[in-house]
């Protein structure tokens, strides 16, 4: 792997944050117009953290999540996962990283419409080459865990929004990822169902130690996170553990832009 030499495992996994972004820029070209989605983001996320990224629409939240999730490459800057620079990886290596280390949850659920829940959950296991019996067992266990033990053979069209999002979460967890990336996971759900989904994600974070990064514009949702990053115009303007919000500890001094590094 390309990232190995300079910042890879040779220097030991423990010494590195799970996620580290260094001066990440992203510029989209829409015809003649250049859109600066990210303008130098620095960020570190430790193993086991629950981070919410909030900000107005167009602030670059989803772009940031795509950078962390190895879905997109920055125009400038570096993204490290477990100390490895994933911007230097090949597409194939990045696919492998997504498969093994990252689970995605989307606002639109993004389930494959013609597959029943159980098969949707099995797909990442299929890609990973897990044998049929084992993956069926694992998918069943995951669906039980998200509370869909009795809806396993339903297709997305036969499931409610909340149920679909649970399937998506089960799918994201199939290969036991290090990081769960959720892009507006409650955006299409009513408040009650949304709250349940957030509770589920939080439970996964606390019980399983899955590092969660949620993009949301809903402060209620952000309130579940231990740390909240505010993104505006492609920059992190403020980051704070949300102790104040949950009312347990006094708010820490907000991290200023660029301090994350």
């Amino acid at each position, binding site marked *: 792997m390309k990232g190995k030499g300079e910042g890879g495992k040779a220097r030991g996994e423990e010494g590195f944050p799970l996620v580290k972004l260094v001066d990440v820029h992203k510029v989209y070209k829409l015809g003649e117009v250049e859109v600066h989605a990210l303008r130098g983001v620095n960020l570190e996320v430790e193993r086991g953290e629950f981070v919410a990224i909030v900000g107005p629409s167009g602030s670059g939240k989803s772009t940031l999540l795509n950078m962390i999730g190895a879905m997109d490459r920055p125009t400038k800057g570096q993204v490290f996962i477990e100390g490895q620079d994933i911007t230097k990886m090949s597409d*194939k290596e990045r*696919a*492998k990283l*997504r*498969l093994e280390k990252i689970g*995605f949850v*989307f606002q639109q659920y*993004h*389930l494959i419409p*013609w597959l029943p829940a159980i098969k949707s959950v099995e797909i990442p296991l299929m890609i990973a080459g897990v044998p049929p019996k084992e993956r069926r067992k694992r998918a069943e266990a995951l669906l039980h865990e998200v509370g869909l033990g009795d809806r396993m053979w339903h297709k997305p069209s036969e499931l409610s929004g909340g149920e679909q999002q649970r399937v998506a979460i089960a799918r994201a967890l199939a290969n036991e990822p290090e990081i769960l990336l959720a892009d507006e996971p409650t955006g299409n759900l009513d408040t009650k169902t949304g709250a349940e989904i957030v509770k589920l994600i939080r439970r996964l974070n606390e019980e399983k130690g899955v590092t969660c990064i949620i993009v949301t514009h809903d402060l209620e949702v952000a309130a579940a996170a231990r740390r909240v990053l505010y993104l505006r115009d492609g920059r992190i303007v403020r980051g704070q553990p949300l102790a104040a919000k949950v009312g347990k500890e006094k708010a820490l001094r907000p991290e200023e832009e660029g301090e994350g590094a």
Partner: protein
Amino acid sequence: MRIADVLRLAKDHMVTSKLRTALTILGIIMGVMAMTAILSVSEGFGIAIREAMETYFNVRVIFVTGIGTFGTQECKLYLTDVEYIRVHMADVVNDTFPGVFGAVRVQVNSTYWTNYQLVMGSSHEKGQKVWPTLYVPLKGKIPSDVDKKGVVLGYKVALFLARLKFKTEDPAVLVDKTLRLRVEMPLPSTAVEGTDIASVTLYREVTVMVRAVLKETGVNLAGFDVDSSIIGTFEAVKEWFRPPEPTNEGFAQISARIEWRSGEVDEVDGAELKTLMEAITVDDETLWDRYVDWYNTRMADYDELASIIVVYAKDVDYVEEIEKRLKDYFEHTGREQAKVIALKAYARAIEGVLGIFRSLLIVLGVIAVIVASLGVFNTMTTNVRERVKEIGIMKAIGATSGTVLKLFWSEAILMGIIGSFLGVLAGWGAAWVIAATGLLKGIVAFGAVFTVTAEPIMTLEIAIWSFTVSLISTAIFGYLPARWASKYDPVVALRYE
């Protein structure tokens, strides 16, 4: 991803879009069916023609013919040539024998004679040896070569006479019947030059006995249409055509037809003709004197002449050598016009034509399959367009471009496998139906050389060929959309509406 899982997912999606998949597969089935049926028909004709060539068209046979009809050939062939070939080419020639061609009218009743019928004079025994499958009696027995009165009738001429003489459709009734033949010998135009006579045709009537009627062959050997021939022995047929001796006795055997320049026609007997010929004088020479001169010239080598020499090679591999040696021989004896015809060369030419014909059919079949594959291309392109978001999902959860390519490609290949397999079966069925109903069972006339009947034949080779071509074609046309699918950027694909 394991291949089994790739196929499982492909199958799941195909089941989801049943109608589209079914229609695409139906397209492949029809294309492959067309190709399989076309190939089986072409194979059938190929085999029938090859069989016909092997049975009737003995490729070990070489003919030598002169030019012109018997007796008036510019390039004469002699029995001494037959002897020469027999002796000097014994190393490569199994047998050789002469033949003679002519035409006669056959008497139907006291006043009516048929138009000209082809007559062949040749050894029955040797004919049977060289063409054992051709010289097969429908009824009766092939006579021996010493039977001067016996003749064998080809199927068509026998049927023709059966209809006229016996009002029946059964040519076998001719067997053991007596026939009156009228052998016509036109005198050369020089014999009547300078007179009011336009032409004189001598004719002799001979009585023959039909010993056998041959089975229908559909074969025409170097201009010799077996089915339309009356076949006698070489010696007998030559006797029929022997011009009469210029004596009272000689002319007593014949009659004549005189056509005057005025257009009048007279039928006279031999004695009357002789009297007339003695009475007409041109430049102090009677027509009779002219006839005597012509007769003497003609008779100088008449007993030695043949119209055709049949040469039968020891082995088919010697044919080219014999051909060459015969050409050299006739060139050295000043008869380069002699035509040496190897049936093997005919066979080759026919096979060549057949090859082109088959290639064309194969091209048609392949086009049918490509059209079907375009259906696959269309379906897969639509699939990819509709499933862009799925491509994004698959990539987001860790699928590589290769996996996405495999997922889509395998669907095309699965359709190809199912369609090709069913298509081959359908083609097999179609070939069977064509054979059973005789829909395409017909007669192929090959440049009037010979005719065959054929029906489609299905072989494992055709099945494998059709299946493979179709599968490769669908795989190629299915690959392109699958490749486009694999190239989608995951972020773009997920945002796709």
